[in-house]
């Protein structure tokens, strides 16, 4: 039996599908934060870290994957059972660096510091999936 801090009856996994638009990012941060907080698996500061990782990943998808304003979707999946696993998927052109990036070009490096593991893989025919895992706090 794995450890489970979530109260009985609460759902262990949730998926959000949103149009790839910048105004979605704040709401996704809030909703994912509330979902993970309800799991009881992570301390408040580690929930903050996960929200920051989410923000960086979504911004990467919008800036790199969907630059030029292409139509697309952002898919965020979070499971919170023995640990928290968050996957952010887009169907954009990938994370090729470009000179007019509005960030500090440190999004992925920052995400790597915020979870216990990070996995980035290309999707076919296009897109990127970023998976962040956070083990339970304390």
């Amino acid at each position, binding site marked *: 039996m794995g450890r489970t801090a979530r109260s009985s009856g609460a759902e262990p996994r949730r998926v959000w599908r949103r149009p790839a638009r*910048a*105004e979605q*990012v*704040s709401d996704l*941060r809030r909703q994912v934060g509330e979902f993970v907080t309800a799991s009881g698996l992570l301390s408040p*500061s580690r929930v*903050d*870290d996960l*929200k*920051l990782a989410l*923000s*960086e990943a979504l*911004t990467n998808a*919008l*800036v790199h994957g969907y630059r030029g304003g292409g139509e697309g979707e952002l898919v965020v999946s979070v499971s919170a059972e023995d640990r928290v696993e968050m996957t952010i998927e887009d169907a954009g052109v990938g994370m090729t660096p470009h000179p007019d990036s*509005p*960030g*500090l070009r*440190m*999004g992925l490096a*920052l995400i790597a*510091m*915020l979870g216990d593991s990070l996995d980035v893989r290309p999707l076919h025919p296009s897109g990127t999936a970023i998976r962040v895992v956070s083990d339970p706090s304390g």
Partner: protein
Amino acid sequence: MLQLNVTDEGSGSFRVGLLGELDYVTAPLLEEQIAALEPRRPRAVVVDLGSLTFLDSSGLRALLAAQRAAGKGGYDLVVQDPLPQARRVFSLTGAKKFLNIQGDETDPGPAAERAAT
């Protein structure tokens, strides 16, 4: 969402209070506000983060741009009272070295030291 409250404190000092979240969507608002102060020839600008609940690397970029603008404009820029989430971003990214941060818990300052004694 981000709300900016600008206060003219006299003698060329301005306070820019940030309420809400500083990210990819809202960062341009801060950059525009700092640019809007330039014609008023500020001597000092305090960017008050005491009510900023979220900061990411896009928001950090705007703060670093404000710091650069202050350097070019010849005035002081202070980043005041960041909450723990923003402090964590400054720490993880090494931005602490490039910003004049006051009210950081690692440097509580004389007022906090007095309160502790």
